[in-house]
């Protein structure tokens, strides 16, 4: 804005503006240079690699890259490969189910914390704890809880609650397809790659994130004017009606941001699945890691990496547009 106004003024202002531009650029350039080297250059190189059959040969401690031009063959390889589409479905299942659970649990926690009760500030402070636990520790922590023997923590809890027999044990991380005895649904879950293991891992991942979702929703709740609820109560609206007619529409911007941010984070999930399940739940990040660093196919790995990157950038673009629209409204 200011730049446009000053353009119409005298030449003294013009030179001042030119000085501003030089200053602005000199502050920006180190960060831009860093990003050029560590983000855009590698991305461009990934695209180049994805058009090649690329291998790394190490001779006498010196590595060199063997590249053989293959046009779009790496992309075609995945697009006709059923295991790639299986990865897409498993990743989507993990993302979708996690998102739904995170939002529901997060909103419930936020609604409880929005009430007045004794010790509320302490409870709210403690909610940040799971978010601070590193993802690798979270994986190990749930690995311990899901211990498949009768002495495991979750098995112990189920025994105490009499949900299973006193010496029984559930193997939580078993790759058993779910809903197999329900016709139709069983086929859908098998097609999606929904197993008992992935469902329990979703619970573990949700533990880390739901409280922070709750804190974000809570911040959104506190922007809702209390008069709206009072007016609705006077008009005879039920608590349920008030939630759907006032709370949910007012939370729309916060929920939108959480949805898209989390979609992108969930879509690239790696740590918990790789650490506890190795390559048995082949979400896209795990498959890419395996393709590049286990099979040594850096061309194919790059093609996969590029496909994920592209997908995420599309979501990011949609997200930015949606946020821009919400801010204008």
């Amino acid at each position, binding site marked *: 804005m*200011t*730049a446009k106004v000053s353009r119409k003024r005298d030449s003294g202002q013009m030179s001042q503006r030119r000085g501003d531009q030089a*200053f602005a650029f000199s*502050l*920006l350039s*180190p*960060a*831009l240079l860093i*990003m050029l080297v*560590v*983000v855009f250059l*590698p*991305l461009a190189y*990934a695209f180049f*690699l994805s058009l090649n059959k690329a291998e790394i040969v190490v001779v006498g401690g010196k*590595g060199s*890259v063997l590249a053989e031009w293959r046009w779009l063959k790496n992309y075609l390889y995945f697009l006709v490969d059923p295991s790639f589409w299986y990865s897409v479905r498993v990743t989507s299942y993990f993302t979708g189910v996690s998102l739904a659970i995170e939002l529901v649990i997060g909103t419930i*926690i936020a609604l*409880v914390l929005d*009430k007045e*009760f004794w010790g509320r500030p302490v*409870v709210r402070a*403690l909610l*940040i*704890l*799971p978010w*601070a*636990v*590193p*993802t*690798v*520790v979270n994986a*190990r*922590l749930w*690995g*311990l*809880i899901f211990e498949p023997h009768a*002495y495991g*923590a979750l098995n*112990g809890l189920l*025994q105490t609650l009499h949900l299973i027999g006193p010496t029984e044990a559930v193997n939580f991380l078993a790759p058993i397809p779910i809903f197999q005895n329900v016709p139709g649904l069983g086929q859908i879950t098998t097609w999606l790659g929904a197993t008992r293991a992935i469902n329990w891992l979703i619970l573990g991942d949700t533990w880390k994130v739901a409280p922070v979702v709750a804190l*974000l929703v809570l911040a959104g709740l506190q922007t809702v004017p209390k008069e709206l609820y009072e007016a609705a109560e006077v008009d005879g609206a039920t608590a349920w009606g008030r939630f759907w007619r006032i709370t949910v529409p007012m939370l729309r*911007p916060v929920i939108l941001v*959480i949805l898209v941010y989390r979609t*992108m984070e969930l879509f690239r999930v*790696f740590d918990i699945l790789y*650490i506890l399940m190795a390559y048995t739940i082949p979400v896209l*990040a795990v498959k*890419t*890691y395996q393709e*590049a*660093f286990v099979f040594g196919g850096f061309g194919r790995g*790059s093609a996969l990496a*590029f496909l*994920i*990157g592209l997908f*995420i950038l599309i979501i*990011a673009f949609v997200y*930015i547009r949606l946020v821009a629209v919400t*801010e204008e409204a």
Partner: protein
Amino acid sequence: MGDRRKILQRVGLYVLVLLILVWTLGPFIWLFLTSISTQAKLNTIPIQWLPSPPTFEHYQAMFDPTSSTGALFLAAMRNSLIIASSTTIVCLIFGVLAAFSLARFSFRGRNALVMGMLATRLLPTIALAVPFYVLIVGYVERVAPMYDTRHNLVILYTSFIIGLVVWIMQGYFQTIPKDLDEAAMVDGCTRFQALTRVILPLVTPGLVTTGLLAFLLAWDEFLLALIFTRTSNAFTMPYFVFIVGSSQYYQSPAAVAAGGFMAALPPVILALVFQNRLVSGLTAGAVKG
């Protein structure tokens, strides 16, 4: 009638709060309880929730540099502290300058740049990990040692943290009126001095929040550490927690739990101490977009 309903509602509320607390803290408390249990206690049926007597042997082992676990743990802790702090400092210095520029001056392509900064934070790590690896092992390694070094991880971590720093800091700069820069310049400051002497002290809370987020992100990172480190020269706490659980270093569930607890302790303490700042930083990022 109305009174009874109110009391029931209160009781219901406290039951919900208790459930939330058990769900939030239970798993982490279990991690600690496992870490101070003996193997015999962990293998008891029915389960014994409280270890009696507790044992701190795994913590002692981690702080004993002569034991194999201790050597690994102390190296990982040192590397993580060095790498996470260096990354934070690098990202803050260059990120803050860029953020100030983006917040104060309007020029063509400014909005695209701001969005580009955000987009780099959203890129999946694996998308950068593959080309990084080929570039570093295939080319850079011949000129300068990079593989299994701390400076390599600092450079790589900067790639996904600096964009976030720029994004958050430019939001903080926009809350400071532009008149202050001009007033400082009338008083004889150069543009750069106006930034360092007048504006930066005013955004100190924002700097602390952003620095914390950067530190926590760098501390948490696993995939790049897994790919680019191998020895105690550079491996980090997440890598340590990974190998004590699934390799020749594996000893017992209690040892894994103790390692995990120690890796979680620094970020958990930071988050609890600064929870107000972090929540406001996260909500500013999320609510404002």
